[in-house]
């Protein structure tokens, strides 16, 4: 049997133009493509996912209310400290049935959304500057990180002294609460871009501005999104703190003011209703806006690890 000359034979296979093995190569290639491409798992059934995600929190809520009811029934605390669940429901329903709840929520939510939008408009260019200009990073980086840890309620006295108990004071507190988070989110998103991507961009002929638009920003999107999410949480929190402290008829009745009203009247069922509504808004925005957005972005990049969340 002749000894196969592997290297010599290979040499002749490759370059010759009319070699029949050239066609073989395309078949081999197609076979490899079929074998090596990642296999896609069927997404779990819709109904099951929904049940799995919806039932446990509802069950938890029911258990919580049952415990509450039991504690109330045991009469360990006076009524003004721990009202019955039914009484809180009555308070909620009396405000919900005439639409007052919607107006309270709207007063606060539209403030938070507007404040958040301004924060995004300010924080995005700021984040780009901090991430890409070393001197700006050295100068502002620690300050922004520090401000992220500063409870924004600390700004309320200053805001009231500067702007009076008016809308601008509330926006000021919201902005100082959320801008640092959004900025830092974008910065860490940009820092986590694999260095090869900007290099590829440069080799493909991207100018600086085009590189920002086509490579830097989209590549930083996951980090930016989590910054936005945190920024929203901070703006909502800051707004509640500000509304709680700076109450005035001129500001209308938002959720924070409503909570403060409950406090002034020593009306525990109002206080609990207010807290419940604040929570409800927070959870709704997270579930209706940020969760689907994040899921879409991560899924399209094959980062499915976060899907189970």
């Amino acid at each position: 049997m002749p000894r196969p000359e592997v290297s010599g034979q290979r040499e002749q296979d490759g370059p010759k133009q009319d070699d029949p093995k050239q066609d073989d190569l395309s078949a081999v290639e197609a076979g490899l493509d079929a074998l090596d491409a990642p296999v896609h798992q069927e997404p779990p059934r819709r109904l099951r996912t929904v049940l799995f995600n919806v039932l446990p929190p509802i069950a938890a809520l029911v258990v919580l209310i049952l415990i509450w009811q039991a504690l109330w029934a045991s009469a360990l605390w006076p009524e003004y400290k721990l009202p019955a669940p039914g009484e809180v429901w009555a308070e909620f329903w009396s405000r919900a049935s005439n639409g007052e709840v919607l107006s309270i929520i709207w007063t606060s939510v539209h403030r938070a959304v507007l404040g958040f939008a301004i924060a995004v408009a300010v924080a995005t260019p700021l984040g780009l500057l901090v991430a890409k200009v070393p001197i700006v990073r050295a100068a502002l980086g620690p300050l922004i990180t520090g401000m992220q840890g500063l409870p924004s309620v600390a700004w309320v006295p200053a805001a009231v002294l500067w702007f009076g108990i008016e809308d601008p004071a509330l926006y000021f507190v919201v902005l100082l609460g959320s801008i640092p988070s959004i900025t830092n989110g974008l910065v860490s998103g940009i820092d986590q871009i694999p260095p090869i991507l900007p290099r590829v961009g440069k080799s493909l002929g991207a100018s600086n501005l085009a590189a920002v638009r086509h490579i830097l920003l989209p590549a930083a999107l996951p980090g930016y999104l989590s910054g936005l999410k945190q920024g929203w949480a901070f703006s909502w929190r800051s707004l509640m703190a500000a509304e709680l402290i700076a109450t005035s008829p001129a500001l209308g009745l938002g959720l924070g003011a409503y909570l403060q009203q409950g406090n002034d009247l020593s009306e525990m069922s109002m206080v609990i209703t207010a807290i419940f509504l604040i929570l409800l808004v927070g959870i709704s925005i997270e579930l209706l806006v940020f969760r689907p957005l994040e899921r879409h972005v991560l899924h399209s990049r094959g980062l499915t690890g976060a899907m189970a969340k």
Partner: protein
Amino acid sequence: MECAIELSGIGKTFGRGKAAITALDGVDLRMAPGEFLCLLGASGCGKSTLLNLIANLDQPSTGSIVRNTARPAVMFQEAALMPWLTVQRNVELPMRLHRVPKAERAEKVAELLDLVRLSGVNDKRPHELSGGMRQRVALARALASAAGTEEADEPSLLLMDEPFAALDAITRDVLQGELIRIWRKTKTAVLFVTHDVREATRLGQRVVLLSSRPGRVVREWHTRDIDGTGDSAEVTDEITAALREVISQHAAT
């Protein structure tokens, strides 16, 4: 004949003072249009650095580079596709950067994907492809680099930095064959960086061996004629011996 690229006296030093590292020293290299040249060397020979200089991703410390080709198409060891873009949009990216009209872009993408035999995966995302497919998309994208630029009609140049090193053996073997096919079809000049002697002799018409730290041209071999004849086994052994000698010189110090 006019050279595709001509490097004269290229030197590259990173850092300053005592910590300075000389990656390249006095490298002269000429490449003819349409030539397939393999740059061979062990780690630290500055072969990637040299490629980056030609790709204009970095500037040489000394010497000059004359390039008479279109914007070079560059491929790296990683495919480095944009994970948020589909295959179609990835290949389109360089043309979007150069403001090529949409219809023209679509036509070119179809042509390039057909060239790398990946028609029909346009709407897939990089994470849905195998490593070999990703590298082929990266090749298609790189080949679109010159489209829409002023030099688009100049002869083309493809710079490859160990593009198959991270692939499994079978895929690497197939892609080497594919690269030769594409080289013949497009008549592009190819500068291929590798540390694999077999790969170098299989692909290159000419193999240039670089020494390490600093990188200098040690020797070069003409491994095969344009028609693909010539005995490669002997040359491979010879180059391997030379490469081993270059590496052994570092053992003493």
